[in-house]
């Protein structure tokens, strides 16, 4: 019983040391590098593609396009795999108006990232 107690006492420390040694030393703090359409831009007609890209891999968990008529269905939706570029298309053409692209994701350094991009369709 005393051996079990000893084991229970050192187990958290052993696990913790293992994690510390096994953890990668460099974690990338991903930053958005650009988008399509560009933030604040005005485009003539509905864009065929909507994209964002990053300097380091990002796991996107939310990618939402909304406009004058609410949330716009997109295809494909993000699949949560780590990527440096995500590209999608609106399921139906976008009418004139102001649109917001809202995304959230997890960078490999554990930092939760979020951003909003605005563009206008003429």
């Amino acid at each position, binding site marked *: 019983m005393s051996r079990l107690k000893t084991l229970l006492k050192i187990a958290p420390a052993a696990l913790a040391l293992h994690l510390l040694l096994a953890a990668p030393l460099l974690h990338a703090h991903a930053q958005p590098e650009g988008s399509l359409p560009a933030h604040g831009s005005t485009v003539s007609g509905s864009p065929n593609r909507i994209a964002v890209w990053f300097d380091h891999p990002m796991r996107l968990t939310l990618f939402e396009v909304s406009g004058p008529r609410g949330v716009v269905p997109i295809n494909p939706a993000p699949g949560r795999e780590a990527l440096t570029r995500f590209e999608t298309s609106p399921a139906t053409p976008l009418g004139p108006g102001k649109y917001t692209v809202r995304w959230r994701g997890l960078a490999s350094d554990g930092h939760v990232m979020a951003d*909003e991009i605005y563009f206008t369709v003429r």
Partner: protein
Amino acid sequence: MTAVVPLLQPLLELLAQTDGWTWLRVLAAAAFYASALAAVGGVLFRLVFGGNPELDRAAGLRTLVPATAGLALLLLLLQWPLQAGFLGGGTLAAALDPGLLALVFEGATGQRLLLAGSGLLLLLGSEMALGRGRGLDTAASQIGTARVLQSLPGLLGAALVLLSFTLVGHSTGAPRLLLASLLLLHLGALAFWVGALLPLYRISAPPHLSQSAGRVLQRFGQVAAPVLAALIAAALLLAWRLLEGWSPLLHSAYGQVLLLKLAVLALLLGLAGLNRWLLVPAFVARQALASQRLRASIVCEGLLVGLILLLTAFLTTTTSPTG
């Protein structure tokens, strides 16, 4: 005034973008920082200033460390679904989504959760072991070496908790070793300070302990000076490396919140100076109302530290040095 508002534009925009779910994350993070640092600091306080059984009892370390370590553990676990919820758009359904929870756990956040959790469990376990051995070891615990040996599991737990902060966030960039070392130095010094507030507040109360409490208060003032210097130096170096210079201090939201932190820190240093050179000597001299004034000052210090931790949590949750 008209010139100030445009200057504060980055901070005002950041505040406007911060939704309710994010504020929940900020509050949970701030509470976690406070409780984790208090638990770590309690261990350090006992190591440096413990050994007088009557004072140790008055300081309440026997309940402070496990209580704060337990609270920190709960808040650490709470951050997990809060982060998953944010990633899913800020809803309860997202917070409980198994896929999002697994995603958060897989990355550096999960590693931090396990490392900090292990450290906090060690802190809890070591306090329970100390509690059981207390009757037999009271005499031995007054001897420095024995006290150090008794504190080893708690110190290891404290080290793991501090190390866990270097696994996630802004200090994980290059140069990693330098940034992580500076962060460890900064947090260790801060924990020393935060962990001392409640014990010092408690030992300043009982009149029959004023002589021995006075000695501890004076020693704390002497030890705290180089600790504070290390805290500030590490913070400034870290800020300079992360911001890549000083101009972002004025022109980025991150820099502006950092400036607010520095302003609160300046107030805190003023209070610390007041304690060291006015209030503690008055307490040692047993002047009238000295105990009440010192305790009031310590409460104010605690509030300012709480504000600093809230600003830190806001920084680490909502923005980054590069904006």
